[in-house]
Protein backbone atom coordinates (compact mmCIF):
# COMPACT_ATOMS: atom_id res chain seq x y z
CA UNK A 1 0.00 0.00 0.00
CA UNK A 2 1.35 3.40 -0.98
CA UNK A 3 2.02 6.08 1.63
CA UNK A 4 -0.78 8.70 1.72
CA UNK A 5 -0.03 11.31 4.43
CA UNK A 6 -3.20 12.47 6.13
CA UNK A 7 -2.11 16.11 6.39
CA UNK A 8 -1.95 16.57 2.60
CA UNK A 9 -4.63 17.07 -0.05
CA UNK A 10 -4.78 15.26 -3.39
CA UNK A 11 -6.24 15.26 -6.87
CA UNK A 12 -7.36 12.28 -8.91
CA UNK A 13 -4.47 12.70 -11.34
CA UNK A 14 -2.11 11.73 -8.47
CA UNK A 15 -0.61 15.06 -7.44
CA UNK A 16 -0.42 16.04 -3.77
CA UNK A 17 -0.86 19.54 -2.32
CA UNK A 18 0.48 20.94 0.94
CA UNK A 19 -1.10 24.17 2.21
CA UNK A 20 1.78 26.32 3.45
CA UNK A 21 -0.51 29.17 4.57
CA UNK A 22 -0.87 32.72 3.23
CA UNK A 23 -2.20 31.37 -0.05
CA UNK A 24 0.91 29.35 -0.92
CA UNK A 25 0.84 25.60 -1.72
CA UNK A 26 3.53 23.07 -2.50
CA UNK A 27 2.85 20.41 -5.14
CA UNK A 28 4.38 17.06 -6.06
CA UNK A 29 3.35 13.63 -7.27
CA UNK A 30 2.16 10.94 -4.88
CA UNK A 31 3.92 7.82 -3.69
CA UNK A 32 1.41 5.82 -5.73
CA UNK A 33 2.35 7.75 -8.89
CA UNK A 34 6.11 7.37 -8.38
CA UNK A 35 5.71 3.65 -7.67
CA UNK A 36 3.80 3.25 -10.88
CA UNK A 37 6.33 5.18 -12.97
CA UNK A 38 9.42 3.48 -11.56
CA UNK A 39 12.82 5.16 -11.54
CA UNK A 40 12.35 8.81 -12.50
CA UNK A 41 15.10 10.09 -14.80
CA UNK A 42 13.91 13.55 -15.88
CA UNK A 43 11.39 16.19 -14.81
CA UNK A 44 10.30 19.21 -16.80
CA UNK A 45 8.89 21.88 -14.50
CA UNK A 46 7.06 25.16 -15.15
CA UNK A 47 8.97 28.43 -15.09
CA UNK A 48 8.82 30.66 -12.04
CA UNK A 49 6.40 33.54 -12.68
CA UNK A 50 4.11 31.64 -15.00
CA UNK A 51 0.35 31.85 -14.34
CA UNK A 52 -1.34 28.45 -14.41
CA UNK A 53 -4.93 27.30 -14.18
CA UNK A 54 -6.21 24.20 -12.41
CA UNK A 55 -5.97 21.25 -14.79
CA UNK A 56 -3.26 22.78 -16.99
CA UNK A 57 -0.35 20.62 -18.07
CA UNK A 58 2.64 22.09 -16.28
CA UNK A 59 5.42 19.65 -17.05
CA UNK A 60 6.45 16.08 -17.74
CA UNK A 61 7.94 13.29 -15.64
CA UNK A 62 10.07 10.77 -17.50
CA UNK A 63 10.90 7.44 -15.93
CA UNK A 64 12.69 4.39 -17.24
CA UNK A 65 9.28 2.94 -18.14
CA UNK A 66 7.10 5.84 -19.31
CA UNK A 67 6.57 9.57 -19.49
CA UNK A 68 3.59 11.29 -17.93
CA UNK A 69 2.17 14.79 -17.91
CA UNK A 70 2.11 16.72 -14.63
CA UNK A 71 -0.97 18.84 -13.93
CA UNK A 72 -1.66 21.97 -11.95
CA UNK A 73 -4.16 20.96 -9.25
CA UNK A 74 -4.91 24.60 -8.47
CA UNK A 75 -4.77 28.00 -10.18
CA UNK A 76 -2.18 30.64 -9.43
CA UNK A 77 1.32 31.92 -10.10
CA UNK A 78 4.37 29.67 -9.91
CA UNK A 79 6.65 31.19 -7.26
CA UNK A 80 9.27 28.43 -6.86
CA UNK A 81 10.39 25.20 -8.49
CA UNK A 82 12.54 22.45 -7.02
CA UNK A 83 15.81 22.99 -8.85
CA UNK A 84 17.39 20.00 -7.05
CA UNK A 85 15.33 17.71 -9.29
CA UNK A 86 17.39 18.75 -12.31
CA UNK A 87 20.46 17.03 -10.88
CA UNK A 88 18.66 14.47 -8.74
CA UNK A 89 15.32 13.38 -10.25
CA UNK A 90 15.51 10.24 -8.13
CA UNK A 91 14.39 12.36 -5.15
CA UNK A 92 10.87 11.87 -6.51
CA UNK A 93 11.24 8.14 -5.83
CA UNK A 94 13.08 8.36 -2.54
CA UNK A 95 11.11 11.20 -0.92
CA UNK A 96 7.98 12.07 -2.95
CA UNK A 97 6.41 14.16 -0.16
CA UNK A 98 9.60 15.87 0.96
CA UNK A 99 12.71 16.60 -1.09
CA UNK A 100 10.92 15.37 -4.21
CA UNK A 101 8.46 18.29 -4.31
CA UNK A 102 7.90 19.87 -7.73
CA UNK A 103 6.81 23.50 -7.46
CA UNK A 104 5.00 26.08 -5.34
CA UNK A 105 2.20 28.37 -6.41
CA UNK A 106 0.59 31.47 -4.95
CA UNK A 107 -3.12 30.74 -5.26
CA UNK A 108 -5.38 33.00 -7.26
CA UNK A 109 -8.53 31.36 -5.90
CA UNK A 110 -8.16 29.84 -2.43
CA UNK A 111 -11.66 28.36 -2.69
CA UNK A 112 -10.26 25.76 -5.10
CA UNK A 113 -8.70 24.13 -2.03
CA UNK A 114 -12.19 22.97 -1.10
CA UNK A 115 -12.36 20.83 -4.25
CA UNK A 116 -9.33 18.70 -3.35
CA UNK A 117 -9.49 15.12 -2.09
CA UNK A 118 -8.57 14.22 1.46
CA UNK A 119 -6.21 11.31 2.16
CA UNK A 120 -8.98 8.77 2.80
CA UNK A 121 -10.82 9.60 -0.40
CA UNK A 122 -7.62 9.51 -2.44
CA UNK A 123 -6.64 6.16 -0.87
CA UNK A 124 -10.05 4.75 -1.75
CA UNK A 125 -9.58 5.90 -5.35
CA UNK A 126 -6.17 4.22 -5.57
CA UNK A 127 -7.57 0.99 -4.15
CA UNK A 128 -10.53 1.09 -6.53
CA UNK A 129 -8.18 1.35 -9.51
Amino acid at each position, binding site marked *: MSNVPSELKYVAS*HEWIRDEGEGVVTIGITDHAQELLGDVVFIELPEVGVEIAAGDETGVVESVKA*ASDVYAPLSGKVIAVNEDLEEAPELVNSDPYGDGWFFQIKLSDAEELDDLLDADTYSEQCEA*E
Partner: protein
Amino acid sequence: MNAPAINMHRQDLPHSALEVLPPAEGLAREMALLSSVSSGERRAGFLIWRCSRSLVVPQRLTRRPQYAMAAGRMILDGWPVQVRSTGGDLTPQSPGLINVALAFRSRRHKSAIRDSYMTLCRPLIEHLACQGIEAHCSSVDGAFCDGDYNLVVEGRKLAGTAQRWRQLEPTVSEQGNEFAVLSHAVLLCDERLDWLWQAGNSFYHHCGLTPFIKADRHVSLAQLLPNRKALLTSTIEQLEARLTQYVKTL
Protein backbone atom coordinates in the same frame (compact mmCIF):
# COMPACT_ATOMS: atom_id res chain seq x y z
CA MET B 1 -18.80 8.77 -23.77
CA ASN B 2 -18.37 5.97 -26.25
CA ALA B 3 -16.14 7.48 -28.92
CA PRO B 4 -15.26 5.34 -31.93
CA ALA B 5 -11.94 3.59 -32.41
CA ILE B 6 -10.39 4.91 -35.59
CA ASN B 7 -7.38 4.12 -37.70
CA MET B 8 -6.03 7.63 -37.64
CA HIS B 9 -3.89 7.80 -40.69
CA ARG B 10 -6.55 6.40 -43.02
CA GLN B 11 -9.46 8.50 -41.91
CA ASP B 12 -7.93 11.69 -40.58
CA LEU B 13 -4.82 12.44 -42.56
CA PRO B 14 -3.83 12.07 -46.20
CA HIS B 15 -1.03 9.81 -45.13
CA SER B 16 0.29 6.50 -46.38
CA ALA B 17 2.19 4.38 -43.87
CA LEU B 18 4.75 3.79 -46.60
CA GLU B 19 5.51 7.51 -46.78
CA VAL B 20 8.74 8.45 -44.99
CA LEU B 21 8.16 11.29 -42.53
CA PRO B 22 10.70 13.61 -40.90
CA PRO B 23 10.93 12.65 -37.21
CA ALA B 24 9.32 15.88 -35.98
CA GLU B 25 6.27 15.31 -38.16
CA GLY B 26 5.88 11.66 -37.24
CA LEU B 27 6.21 12.41 -33.52
CA ALA B 28 3.74 15.30 -33.84
CA ARG B 29 1.22 12.94 -35.43
CA GLU B 30 1.70 10.50 -32.57
CA MET B 31 1.00 13.25 -30.03
CA ALA B 32 -2.03 14.32 -32.07
CA LEU B 33 -3.28 10.75 -31.83
CA LEU B 34 -2.81 10.84 -28.04
CA SER B 35 -4.64 14.18 -27.88
CA SER B 36 -7.53 12.77 -29.90
CA VAL B 37 -8.02 10.12 -27.21
CA SER B 38 -7.54 12.47 -24.24
CA SER B 39 -10.07 14.89 -25.74
CA GLY B 40 -12.63 12.15 -26.32
CA GLU B 41 -12.56 12.54 -30.10
CA ARG B 42 -11.98 8.80 -30.27
CA ARG B 43 -11.73 5.98 -27.79
CA ALA B 44 -8.68 4.36 -29.37
CA GLY B 45 -6.62 4.64 -32.54
CA PHE B 46 -3.33 3.73 -34.12
CA LEU B 47 -0.71 5.18 -36.41
CA ILE B 48 1.89 3.37 -38.48
CA TRP B 49 4.70 5.41 -40.00
CA ARG B 50 8.26 5.33 -41.27
CA CYS B 51 10.87 7.86 -40.29
CA SER B 52 13.71 9.47 -42.16
CA ARG B 53 17.21 8.72 -40.93
CA SER B 54 17.67 10.38 -37.54
CA LEU B 55 18.30 9.86 -33.86
CA VAL B 56 15.31 10.33 -31.57
CA VAL B 57 16.24 11.06 -27.97
CA PRO B 58 14.35 11.62 -24.69
CA GLN B 59 14.35 15.04 -23.06
CA ARG B 60 16.71 13.98 -20.28
CA LEU B 61 19.61 13.69 -22.73
CA THR B 62 19.15 17.35 -23.70
CA ARG B 63 20.34 18.25 -20.17
CA ARG B 64 23.78 16.88 -20.91
CA PRO B 65 26.26 19.76 -21.19
CA GLN B 66 27.64 18.24 -24.42
CA TYR B 67 24.18 17.78 -25.98
CA ALA B 68 24.25 20.73 -28.40
CA MET B 69 27.71 19.83 -29.64
CA ALA B 70 26.79 16.16 -29.95
CA ALA B 71 23.62 16.98 -31.90
CA GLY B 72 25.63 19.25 -34.20
CA ARG B 73 28.21 16.55 -34.84
CA MET B 74 25.52 14.02 -35.67
CA ILE B 75 23.88 16.39 -38.17
CA LEU B 76 27.21 16.63 -39.98
CA ASP B 77 27.26 12.82 -40.10
CA GLY B 78 23.77 12.76 -41.60
CA TRP B 79 21.90 11.89 -38.40
CA PRO B 80 19.78 14.85 -37.26
CA VAL B 81 18.65 14.58 -33.63
CA GLN B 82 15.02 14.96 -32.62
CA VAL B 83 13.72 15.12 -29.04
CA ARG B 84 10.69 13.02 -28.15
CA SER B 85 8.39 13.07 -25.14
CA THR B 86 7.79 9.40 -24.42
CA GLY B 87 10.78 8.77 -22.16
CA GLY B 88 13.03 5.78 -22.71
CA ASP B 89 16.41 6.25 -24.34
CA LEU B 90 18.01 7.06 -27.70
CA THR B 91 16.39 5.36 -30.68
CA PRO B 92 17.95 5.43 -34.15
CA GLN B 93 15.40 5.80 -36.94
CA SER B 94 15.62 4.89 -40.61
CA PRO B 95 13.07 4.14 -43.35
CA GLY B 96 13.58 0.39 -42.97
CA LEU B 97 12.09 0.53 -39.47
CA ILE B 98 8.34 0.58 -38.78
CA ASN B 99 6.85 2.82 -36.08
CA VAL B 100 3.61 1.60 -34.55
CA ALA B 101 1.74 3.88 -32.12
CA LEU B 102 -1.41 2.81 -30.29
CA ALA B 103 -3.50 5.19 -28.16
CA PHE B 104 -6.24 4.10 -25.79
CA ARG B 105 -7.73 4.73 -22.35
CA SER B 106 -6.49 3.37 -19.02
CA ARG B 107 -6.73 3.96 -15.31
CA ARG B 108 -3.53 4.34 -13.34
CA HIS B 109 -3.65 1.12 -11.35
CA LYS B 110 -0.61 -0.76 -10.07
CA SER B 111 0.06 -2.74 -13.26
CA ALA B 112 -1.16 -0.05 -15.67
CA ILE B 113 2.18 0.57 -17.35
CA ARG B 114 2.81 -3.14 -17.85
CA ASP B 115 -0.74 -3.69 -19.10
CA SER B 116 -0.42 -0.75 -21.50
CA TYR B 117 2.77 -2.14 -22.97
CA MET B 118 1.09 -5.51 -23.40
CA THR B 119 -1.89 -3.85 -25.08
CA LEU B 120 0.57 -2.79 -27.77
CA CYS B 121 2.81 -5.85 -27.78
CA ARG B 122 0.00 -8.42 -27.93
CA PRO B 123 -1.05 -7.75 -31.54
CA LEU B 124 2.59 -7.45 -32.59
CA ILE B 125 3.41 -10.82 -31.02
CA GLU B 126 0.35 -12.32 -32.71
CA HIS B 127 1.44 -10.91 -36.06
CA LEU B 128 4.91 -12.39 -35.64
CA ALA B 129 3.43 -15.75 -34.63
CA CYS B 130 1.54 -15.77 -37.93
CA GLN B 131 4.93 -15.47 -39.64
CA GLY B 132 6.29 -18.39 -37.63
CA ILE B 133 8.30 -16.17 -35.26
CA GLU B 134 8.02 -16.68 -31.51
CA ALA B 135 8.52 -13.37 -29.71
CA HIS B 136 8.16 -12.32 -26.09
CA CYS B 137 8.76 -9.24 -23.93
CA SER B 138 12.04 -8.94 -22.08
CA SER B 139 15.00 -6.67 -21.49
CA VAL B 140 18.17 -7.27 -23.52
CA ASP B 141 21.44 -6.05 -22.06
CA GLY B 142 23.34 -4.05 -24.68
CA ALA B 143 20.25 -3.28 -26.78
CA PHE B 144 19.25 0.27 -27.77
CA CYS B 145 16.62 1.88 -25.49
CA ASP B 146 16.51 -1.22 -23.32
CA GLY B 147 13.49 -1.96 -21.15
CA ASP B 148 11.34 -4.78 -19.84
CA TYR B 149 8.99 -4.56 -22.82
CA ASN B 150 11.31 -5.00 -25.76
CA LEU B 151 10.00 -7.50 -28.29
CA VAL B 152 12.64 -10.21 -28.23
CA VAL B 153 13.28 -13.19 -30.51
CA GLU B 154 15.82 -15.81 -29.43
CA GLY B 155 17.43 -13.38 -27.02
CA ARG B 156 17.80 -10.55 -29.53
CA LYS B 157 15.79 -7.35 -29.67
CA LEU B 158 13.39 -6.97 -32.58
CA ALA B 159 11.42 -3.95 -31.34
CA GLY B 160 11.70 -1.25 -28.69
CA THR B 161 8.79 0.37 -26.89
CA ALA B 162 7.98 3.59 -25.02
CA GLN B 163 4.91 5.12 -23.42
CA ARG B 164 3.30 8.49 -22.65
CA TRP B 165 0.36 9.20 -20.31
CA ARG B 166 -2.05 12.12 -20.42
CA GLN B 167 -5.15 12.75 -18.33
CA LEU B 168 -8.51 12.59 -20.08
CA GLU B 169 -10.18 15.97 -20.31
CA PRO B 170 -12.80 16.62 -17.59
CA THR B 171 -15.64 16.54 -20.12
CA VAL B 172 -14.58 13.01 -21.09
CA SER B 173 -13.88 11.62 -17.62
CA GLU B 174 -15.79 13.32 -14.81
CA GLN B 175 -13.90 11.39 -12.12
CA GLY B 176 -10.57 12.79 -13.30
CA ASN B 177 -8.69 9.54 -12.82
CA GLU B 178 -8.75 8.17 -16.36
CA PHE B 179 -5.83 8.64 -18.71
CA ALA B 180 -5.03 8.39 -22.38
CA VAL B 181 -1.98 6.25 -23.07
CA LEU B 182 0.23 6.34 -26.15
CA SER B 183 2.21 3.11 -26.46
CA HIS B 184 4.79 3.19 -29.19
CA ALA B 185 6.99 0.53 -30.79
CA VAL B 186 9.75 0.72 -33.37
CA LEU B 187 10.17 -2.54 -35.24
CA LEU B 188 13.50 -3.39 -36.89
CA CYS B 189 12.17 -4.54 -40.23
CA ASP B 190 14.42 -4.25 -43.26
CA GLU B 191 17.46 -2.09 -42.58
CA ARG B 192 21.22 -2.33 -42.35
CA LEU B 193 21.37 -2.38 -38.56
CA ASP B 194 25.06 -1.74 -37.92
CA TRP B 195 24.70 1.83 -39.20
CA LEU B 196 22.02 2.47 -36.58
CA TRP B 197 24.13 1.28 -33.68
CA GLN B 198 27.23 3.11 -34.89
CA ALA B 199 25.27 6.35 -35.03
CA GLY B 200 23.71 5.77 -31.60
CA ASN B 201 27.04 4.98 -30.00
CA SER B 202 28.65 8.02 -31.66
CA PHE B 203 26.00 10.25 -30.10
CA TYR B 204 26.59 8.75 -26.65
CA HIS B 205 30.33 9.25 -27.09
CA HIS B 206 29.90 12.90 -28.13
CA CYS B 207 27.61 13.38 -25.12
CA GLY B 208 30.30 12.10 -22.77
CA LEU B 209 28.46 8.85 -22.11
CA THR B 210 29.79 5.33 -22.50
CA PRO B 211 28.60 3.82 -25.79
CA PHE B 212 26.81 0.60 -24.90
CA ILE B 213 24.76 -0.54 -27.90
CA LYS B 214 25.98 -3.95 -29.08
CA ALA B 215 25.12 -5.01 -32.60
CA ASP B 216 24.75 -8.70 -31.77
CA ARG B 217 21.92 -8.00 -29.33
CA HIS B 218 19.54 -7.09 -32.17
CA VAL B 219 17.77 -8.83 -35.01
CA SER B 220 15.65 -7.53 -37.86
CA LEU B 221 12.57 -9.04 -39.43
CA ALA B 222 14.53 -9.33 -42.69
CA GLN B 223 17.09 -11.50 -40.89
CA LEU B 224 14.34 -13.69 -39.45
CA LEU B 225 12.51 -13.96 -42.78
CA PRO B 226 15.36 -13.84 -45.32
CA ASN B 227 13.39 -15.06 -48.33
CA ARG B 228 10.31 -12.88 -47.90
CA LYS B 229 9.62 -10.57 -50.85
CA ALA B 230 8.48 -6.98 -50.25
CA LEU B 231 8.83 -7.52 -46.52
CA LEU B 232 8.46 -3.89 -45.48
CA THR B 233 5.33 -3.27 -47.52
CA SER B 234 3.64 -6.52 -46.61
CA THR B 235 4.42 -6.10 -42.91
CA ILE B 236 2.92 -2.62 -42.86
CA GLU B 237 -0.19 -3.79 -44.71
CA GLN B 238 -0.66 -6.76 -42.40
CA LEU B 239 -0.19 -4.65 -39.27
CA GLU B 240 -2.66 -2.09 -40.59
CA ALA B 241 -5.26 -4.79 -41.14
CA ARG B 242 -4.66 -6.37 -37.73
CA LEU B 243 -4.69 -3.09 -35.80
CA THR B 244 -7.78 -1.82 -37.60
CA GLN B 245 -9.67 -4.74 -36.07
CA TYR B 246 -7.78 -4.61 -32.76
CA VAL B 247 -8.56 -1.00 -31.87
CA LYS B 248 -12.27 -1.80 -32.09
CA THR B 249 -11.78 -3.99 -29.02
CA LEU B 250 -10.10 -1.30 -26.88
